[in-house]
């Protein structure tokens, strides 16, 4: 009986330890998991891993973007996947915040199908400062895709924007420190 209660206590301690470790691992909001870097001849190359948040309404789907930039460069590459039920030609992307609107042309990487949606993969070049200004906005901004069938407004929830903006501000600070 005594042995049984000891065994149960040890099992309880083991389970508690596993849950503690699990909660530490999952609650740590480190930015290290959101980027990779690689040392190149012309400086440190940074890659902000794919992140989602912006999405359209109705038949318009979500946007998932990643960012590639050199620490010592003025510009960056903004690659994104956009999912939509409609067959489209994307032409331009606009980053619309309370104080600034930045519009840049798009270059198509590929178009594929994913389930019932079209998967559009496009690339845009813009200034690092422009994207920094976008992420510096406290008010919720929007992204507008200009297509051959009109404009598509992509929005984000306040909670998600706080996460995305905070993360990207830290990532750009990291790049600036290098």
């Amino acid at each position, binding site marked *: 009986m005594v042995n049984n209660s000891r065994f149960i206590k040890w099992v309880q301690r083991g389970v508690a330890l*596993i849950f503690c470790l699990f909660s530490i691992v999952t609650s740590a909001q480190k930015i290290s998991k959101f980027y*990779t870097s690689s040392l190149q001849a012309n400086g440190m190359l940074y890659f902000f891993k794919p992140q989602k948040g912006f999405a359209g309404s109705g038949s318009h789907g979500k946007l998932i973007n*990643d960012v590639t930039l050199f620490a010592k460069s003025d510009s960056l590459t903004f690659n994104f996947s956009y999912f939509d039920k409609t067959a489209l030609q994307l032409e331009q992307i606009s980053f619309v915040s309370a104080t600034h609107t930045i519009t840049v042309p798009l270059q198509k990487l590929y178009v594929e199908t994913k389930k019932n949606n079209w998967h559009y993969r496009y690339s845009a070049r813009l200034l690092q400062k422009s994207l920094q200004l976008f992420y510096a906005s406290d008010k919720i901004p929007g992204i507008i895709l200009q297509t051959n069938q009109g404009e598509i407004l992509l929005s984000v929830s306040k909670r998600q924007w706080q996460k995305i903006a905070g993360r990207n501000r830290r990532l750009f600070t990291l790049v600036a420190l290098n």
Partner: protein
Amino acid sequence: MKNLKMFSIAAVAAVMLSSCAMVKSPLSAVIYTDVKGPVAVTGNSGSSKVGTAKATGILGILATGDASIDAAAKNGGITKIHHVDEHATNILGLFATYEVIVYGE
């Protein structure tokens, strides 16, 4: 009939409880894995583009995604590959991801 029902429940429970998500990784651990490693290096010089592709697994029961080098290169608009890395994560064998990261031009 009752025995058969009990046996079926026991068999399903055994499958559910014994399965865990496994992921290809240079090192792996029971509680938590978050490991990067090399996949390939080519003779091409320099990288200015990066592309990733990811596959995920849940409980060792479901696994989906395209984590091929080709998918990652396409996502980054890369035609000349410089090197390829991998990034594997696994939490308690419940949730696993495998990501391929391609660098190139």
